[in-house]
C-alpha cells in the first residue's frame, strides 16, 4: 500500500493554500506532517480524505485517485479530524454503531466489528457512556475508533494529540504504534514535535503550502544540521582533552561539564569518525563518544520562518 501526494495544489482565490506538494509513504509507516498554523496541512489531509478537490495534482492511495475516484478511495482511508465528536444524546456504542451502518456493515458482522474496535481502542468499559460526558482523551479514542471501523489501510489524523493530557497522549502513542505494526500507513499532523519524533518513522515539514523538508526521521535529524554535537568521556585527562579540542580547527565550540566534554564539530558523520580516530591516536582513553542529535523542534525552527498566508 503506497500513498502518493503528487504535485498537489489548492488555491482559494489568490491564496495558495497548497502549492506543488509532493511526498509519498507506505504501509507500516507513521509519517509526521509538521508545519505552522495555515501551512496547508489540513487542506492536504482533507484532499487525501476525499473531502476537498485540489486545483491541480492528485492524491493516490494504492493507485486509486482520491480526486477522481473518491468512492473507491474512501474504502481505503480513515480520517480523524481535528475536532472531536459532539453528538448529543448518544452513547459511545451508538455512535460507533451509527458509523458502522454508514459504512455499510450489516448484521452480526457490524456488531463484531464495533465490539472489536471498542476493545482495541479501550472503549469497552465506557461504551454505554454518553459522548458529551467523555474527556478529551476518550473522545479522541472514539474518533480514532470511528476511523477504524471499515479497517482502512491508510489513517489520516489531524492534530490528534491537541489538548490531551500526558496520559492520554501516551495511550494514543501506543495505539498508533499498534496500528503501525498492523501495517497501516499513518499520516499524522501535530504541533507536539517531540512526540512526533518518538513515534514517527518519517516527517514532512511544510510551510506556506510548500514542502520544505521530507524524509526519514533519522535522516532529517542529521541532514538538517551542517554540524554535529558530540559528548566525549575519557578516562583521566579531561583538561588535556578539553585543551586539545580547543585547538582543533574544525571544532567550533567546546564545553567542559564535569566528567564529560561536549564539542560542536563542523561537518557530518565522517567528521565525527575522524575526530574519534584522532583522539584515540593521540592517546586519549575514550570510553564514551556519543553524537547528540538535533531534535525535530530544532530542525523545525531552522527550516521554517513562521510565515503563514
Amino acid at each position: 500500500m503506497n500513498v502518493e501526494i503528487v504535485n498537489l495544489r489548492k488555491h482559494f482565490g489568490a491564496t495558495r493554500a497548497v502549492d506543488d506538494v509532493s511526498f509519498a509513504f507506505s504501509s507500516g509507516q507513521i509519517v509526521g506532517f509538521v508545519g505552522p498554523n495555515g501551512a496547508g496541512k489540513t487542506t492536504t489531509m482533507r484532499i487525501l480524505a476525499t473531502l476537498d478537490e485540489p486545483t491541480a495534482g492528485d492524491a493516490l492511495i494504492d493507485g486509486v485517485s482520491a480526486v477522481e475516484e473518491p468512492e473507491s478511495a474512501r474504502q481505503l482511508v480513515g480520517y480523524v479530524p481535528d475536532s472531536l465528536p459532539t453528538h448529543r444524546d448518544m452513547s459511545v456504542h451508538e455512535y460507533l454503531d451509527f458509523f458502522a451502518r454508514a459504512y455499510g456493515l450489516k448484521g452480526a458482522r457490524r456488531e463484531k466489528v464495533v465490539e472489536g474496535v471498542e476493545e482495541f481502542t479501550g472503549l469497552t468499559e465506557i461504551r454505554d457512556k454518553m459522548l458529551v460526558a467523555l474527556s478529551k482523551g476518550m473522545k479522541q479514542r472514539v474518533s480514532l475508533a470511528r476511523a477504524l471501523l471499515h479497517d482502512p489501510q491508510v489513517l489520516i489524523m489531524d492534530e490528534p494529540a491537541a489538548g490531551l493530557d500526558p496520559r492520554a497522549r501516551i495511550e494514543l502513542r501506543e495505539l498508533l504504534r499498534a496500528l503501525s505494526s498492523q501495517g497501516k500507513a499513518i499520516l499524522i499532523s501535530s504541533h507536539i514535535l517531540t512526540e512526533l519524533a518518538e513515534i514517527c518513522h518519517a516527517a514532512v515539514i511544510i510551510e506556506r503550502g510548500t514542502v520544505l523538508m521530507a524524509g526519514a526521521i533519522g535522516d532529517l535529524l542529521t541532514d538538517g544540521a551542517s554540524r554535529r554535537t558530540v559528548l566525549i568521556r575519557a578516562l583521566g585527562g579531561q583538561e588535556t582533552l578539553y585543551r586539545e579540542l580547543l585547538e582543533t580547527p574544525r571544532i567550533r565550540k567546546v564545553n567542559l561539564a564535569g566528567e564529560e566534554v561536549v564539542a560542536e564539530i563542523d561537518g557530518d558523520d565522517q567528521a565525527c569518525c575522524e575526530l574519534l580516530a584522532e583522539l584515540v591516536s593521540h592517546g586519549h582513553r575514550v570510553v564514551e563518544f556519543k553524537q547528540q542529535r538535533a531534535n525535530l523542534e530544532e530542525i523545525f525552527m531552522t527550516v521554517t520562518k513562521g510565515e503563514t498566508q
Partner: protein
Amino acid sequence: MTAESILKESGARGGFGDRINPIVVKELRQAVQSRFVIATLLTLLSIQIVAIGIYILASGASLFGFDAGRQAFLMLFSILQSIGMIFAPLYTGARLVAERSDTNVDLLFITTIKPRSIIAGKMFAAMTLTALIYSACMPFMTFTYFLRGIDLPSIFISLGVGFVVVIACVQAAVFVALIPVGRALKVIFGLVALIVFGVAYFVTVFGVSDLVARGFVTRVSWQLVVFFGVLVVFLIGLFFVMSVALIMPVASNRALPVRLFITAAWLSTGVAALINISIEKDQRVLIAWLVAFEIVFAMAIFVAVSERDRPGRRVLRSIPRSPLGRALAFFFFSGAANGLAWASVMVVLTLGVAVACVELFSTHRNTNDLIDSAKWMGGMCLYFFCYATTGALLRRRLFSRVGTELTWLIGAILLAVGSLAPFLTGYIVFFHDQWWSEDFGAWWVGNPFAWGNKGHRVLYASVSGVWAVHVAAMSLPWFFKRCEDFQTGATCRKGGGTGSVSDLSIDQEAS
C-alpha cells in the same frame, strides 16, 4: 426473554435493521433519549387534556349543540399544529446546525452514505417524530367526534393536511440550517423562517377551519385540497433537493438534482395545468403555474451566476460522452454558464407555453389575465437577468478578488440601487408629492416589480431589452469559453493534473 433477544435470535432484527437508513436509526435513538422531546410531548398532552377539560366544563348547555365537536376539534387542532410547526422544525434544524458546526457532516461524506440519504434520513426521522406527536393526540381529536358537528373523515383529512404542513416546515428548517453562512446570519434566516411558519400556521388553521365548515364533499373543497397538496409537495421536494445540494461537497455536481427536480416539476405540473385548461375552459391554473415557475427561474438566475465558474474534475468526470448527452448535460450540470443557460431557456419556454395557450385557447376564461401575467413575469425575469449578469460581469472584470459565490450579492446591490435610485432621484428633484400617481411611473424604470404600471411597460421593456442585449453580448465570450471548456473537459478529463511522484518519497528502508 425480551423482545429484542427474540428478534435477535430469529435474525429479523438484523435483516430489518440493516435496511433502515442509518441516519434514521441515529436520529430516533437520539430523540428517545432527548429530554427536550419527552418534555415537549408531555407538555402537549397536558395542554390537550387541560384544554378539552376546560372546554367541556365551560361549554355548559352549548356542549349539546350541533357544532360542539367541530369547535373542540379546531381548538385542539390549532394547539397541536402550533406545537408541531414550532417543535419539529426547531428540533430538526437546531440539531442539524449543531452537527454542521463541526466536521460531523464531513465525516459522513467519507462513509458510503449518500448526501441524499442523509437528508432523507433526517426527514424520515422528523416524520416519525411528528407522527408520534399526532398519534399521541389522536384520542383527543377523535373524542370530538362524539361531541357532534364533525365526522371522522374530516378529522383524519385535517390531521393529514396538518401533518404535511409540518413536514414542509421541517424540510424548510433543514434547508435553512444548511445554508452556509455565519451564526448571526443563520439566526436571522431562522427568524425569517419562523415568521413564514407563523403565516403558514394561520393559513393552515383557517384553511382547515373553512374546509371542516364546508365539509369534504364539495368539489371546491377537493380542488382546494389538491391545489394545496401539489403546492406543499412541490415545496417539500424543492427544499429537499436544495438541502441535498447544500450538503453535497463543493466539488460535486450540486446543481444537477435541483435542476432535474425543478424541470420535472415544471413539466408535470405544466401538463396538469394544460389538462385543467381543456376541461375547465379557464386559464387560472396556468396563470398560477406561470407565476410560480417564473419566480423560481428568476431566483435561479441569481443562484446560477454565483456557482463555480469552471466545473471541477469530479463534475467533468461525469459528463456523458455522447454529443447529445453532453449537450443536454450542459444545461443541468453545475457551473455558472450552465445555470444561466438553463434558467434562461426555462423562462423562455414557460413564456412560450403561455403564448401558445393564449393562441390556442383564446376564448377561455381569464385569457386577458394570462396575457397580463406573462408580460409582467417576462419583464421581471428580463430585469433579473440584466441585474444578475451585470453583477457577474462586474465581478469578473472589476472585483475579481470577490469569490464567485458572492456574485448574487453584487447583483442584489445593483437590483436595490436600480430599483430605487431613479425613483428617489425623481422624487427629490421633480416631484415632492403625488408620488403614487401613475404619471410618475416612468421613474420606476429600473424596478423589476413595477410592471403593474401598464402605461409605462413600453419604456420598461425598451430599457431592459437594450440592457439585456448589451450585457448578453459582453458576456458571450465568457459563455462560449465555458461551453468550450465543458466540451473539451468531457474528452480529456482522465488523468488531468497528475504527474510523477517527486523525489521526496519516504521509503520504508530509510526509516
